[in-house]
């Protein structure tokens, strides 16, 4: 167990370092940043805000990771979020029960994912373009549902998902934690993870080895649709209304960024859900840090770009090899250790 834990930590090390660096940097400019207190049975503080506000991107990143691992990309997640938010709001206001609403919404999200998956796996359309179709049309569909307005609702159950709390944590955090753990267990305790990585690296060789490529590809996009549905529900529940115009707008880029910051290659193959979640949290930490910093908003983008470039440069393979001499003694130690076994 311990060696597995160690390889796990080694995988996540760059992300953990980046996150700590950002948190430290923020807390130096804004002293109260690390404070946590309990208020109304709920943890309260900027750190919790990061986890909470990061929920949509974390969720999207979880699905996106799997899609990217298959060498795909899903640009439609933002639009699917909007669709699902709109569907949830319209069902709950039409008097359906919370359970029915959630079920339908999730079904819609999964269906959207399936559509993408079929375009990619069966019609063999390139993922960027295949999902661009739904990215463009999806927001229209969402607006069709809400007729361009913000569809507000008062159902306490649905609102609870957005702003309630469980065991001291805001519900969105609980949701993504549970979802992330479930997905990670699903892919790593079954053979899905390896098969998906195989498809991402060499689809043809995988098919020839008997891997059920089309089905797994479709499943990957369906998972992404599911993540987007949950993210959409949370986003709508958070503001007690479905904003089809703006929900999830450009979030697909943040999600992709999160996956890359998490160290998963856009060329497919090896992936780590946990690292992507950390990536999303890093991005949210940057956003929250910018908000707390009090800089005028015209600097937001520049600050964000600079920090991202910095993190990516630190992570880039070249940079790492350039500083490989730092790691050499450690690696040598590891080999001798292995030989000793």
């Amino acid at each position: 167990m311990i060696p597995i834990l160690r390889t796990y930590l080694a995988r996540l090390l760059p992300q953990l370092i980046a996150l700590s660096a950002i948190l430290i940097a923020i807390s130096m400019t804004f002293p109260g940043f690390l404070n946590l207190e309990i208020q109304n049975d709920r943890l309260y503080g900027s750190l919790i805000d990061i986890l909470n506000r990061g929920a949509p991107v974390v969720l999207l990143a979880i699905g996106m990771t799997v899609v990217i691992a298959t060498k795909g990309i899903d640009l439609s997640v933002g639009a699917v979020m909007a669709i699902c938010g709109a569907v949830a709001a319209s069902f709950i206001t039409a008097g359906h029960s919370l359970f029915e609403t959630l079920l339908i919404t999730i079904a819609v999200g999964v269906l959207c994912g399936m559509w993408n998956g079929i375009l990619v796996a069966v019609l063999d359309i390139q993922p960027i373009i295949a999902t661009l179709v739904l990215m463009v049309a999806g927001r229209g569909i969402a607006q069709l549902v809400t007729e361009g307005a913000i569809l507000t609702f008062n159902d306490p159950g649905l609102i609870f998902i957005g702003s309630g709390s469980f065991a001291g944590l805001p519900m969105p955090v609980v949701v993504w934690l549970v979802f992330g753990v479930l997905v990670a267990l699903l892919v790593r305790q079954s053979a899905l993870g390896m098969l998906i990585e195989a498809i991402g690296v060499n689809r043809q060789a995988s098919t020839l080895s008997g891997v059920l490529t089309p089905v797994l590809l479709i499943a990957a996009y369906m998972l992404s649709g599911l993540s987007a549905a949950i993210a959409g529900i949370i986003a709508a529940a958070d503001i007690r209304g479905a904003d089809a115009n703006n929900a999830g707008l450009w979030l697909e880029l943040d999600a992709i960024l999160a996956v890359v910051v998490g160290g998963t290659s856009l060329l497919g193959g090896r992936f780590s859900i946990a690292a992507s979640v950390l990536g999303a949290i890093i991005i949210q930490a940057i956003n929250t840090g910018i908000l707390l910093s009090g800089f005028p908003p015209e600097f937001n983008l520049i600050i964000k770009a600079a920090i991202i470039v910095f993190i990516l440069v630190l992570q880039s393979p070249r940079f790492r090899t350039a500083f490989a001499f730092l790691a050499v003694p450690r690696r040598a130690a590891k080999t001798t250790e292995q030989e000793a076994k």
Partner: protein
Amino acid sequence: MQASSDNILTAVRIDKGFPGTKALDKVDFHLQRGEVHALLGENGAGKSTLIKCLTGAYRRDGGSILLDGVEVDPRDTFDAQRLGIGTVYQEVNLLPNLSVAENLFLGRQPRRFGMVDIRAMNRMARELLSEYELELDVTRALASYSVAIQQVVAIARAVDLSGKVLILDEPTASLDAHEVAMLFRIVRRLKARGLGIIFITHFLEQVYEISDRITVLRNGRLVGTRNTADLDRRDLIAMMIGRELAAEIHAAEAHAAEGEPRYRFRNYGRRGRIDPFDLDVRAGEVVGIAGLLGSGRTETAEVLFGAHRADSGTAEIDGRRVELSSPRAAIRRKFGFCPEDRKTDGIVGDLSVRENIVLALQARRGWTRPISRAEQNRLADLYIRALDIRTADREKPIKLLSGGNQQKAILARWLATEPEFLILDEPTRGIDVGAHAEIVRLIESLREKGMSLIVISSELEELVAYSTRIIVLRDRAHVAELDGERITAHQIVEAIAAANERRAS
């Protein structure tokens, strides 16, 4: 070893390490003007790595390179080309999306008024290829031609680039006898012109046919350099593998299989790929498939395995009709298929050797029943040992293995599924002598255990050694079947020639 003034290329104490591997350890290498110098060694000995260091594709860790007595340091392959070193790297290394002509003249296209003169380029390309007896539409994408043709194009390009040195890393792996002969004619001509030629291969006949001197590497170290004439085959093999080889491919013994055919294909085929054919395979039988390049051998295998769905005919196993509509369906029937093009159809490059080995087995079990890590390790170790796959450890990404070792890992992938019907398309391509003999032995033992095998190979000697029957292909059709006494290399050549004559007339 004296540094003769005749040396055109001298490499001194070349070092190259990869994480976990010392690929080259102070290797010296001297290439003379007007000689063909064979560079030999087992899979993973470091041959390709040495080549890549010489041509700047890898940065060497240490050592120096002299070209014509002048120290050079090619920073990249472009540099090496400018210095007059033309290279064919091991895997076909041309660009499939470019036209044949563009591949030939990439980076040195003829220009007029600053623009590339496409017409002149195509004309030059046709002229260049006519030396190789190839009449191609040079404006078509390279991908539309077979691996063999691509290989010839790669050779043509390298030869044209080599002002001083020509390096050929297993250029003959996917060529048949005819093309090899043609290549050798060209090599001799270049040699007469005073070029130095480095030639890497695992075919020892070819070594003796063409080379003047031999340098052997083992585990990244120089074993020695000898005159070919002074070194007999046994000693050479001993130099390469560090021990005596029990026996090389032994002579054929007739082993006709008994009993009813287990696998029965009737009128099986796919339009545009392979004409309908009948095929029966018994348990404990090896059916060899012979034919020239592009004769449809790979297509036969792919149709049998369901990689391309057959559009005519029926398949029966043990008398029961089966649909082999996809690789999955075939694998469910305990089929296995080791493809010819390992780079695109075989290896899953970024995954580890272990994962590559268990992939097909895992795919057959389905994703819900993962093979435990311990079991994966056991399988991987088992086959790494059984097939002698040279790798630092089982977690190494397979793309970092040498070509021959990748081939063995793919073979292991299928053996792990314990197939009953195994199709091997060029299983020994790029495999060293030692391993070659082992694979032949392996095929024998699988046959003895009652497995049915279909083996495609361009090496007739090898086919003759293990086949119980041989099918000869021509123009995408099965044209002859040899069995019993008639299984000899001579008969196969006859059958192909007869077919060719018929085509010619």
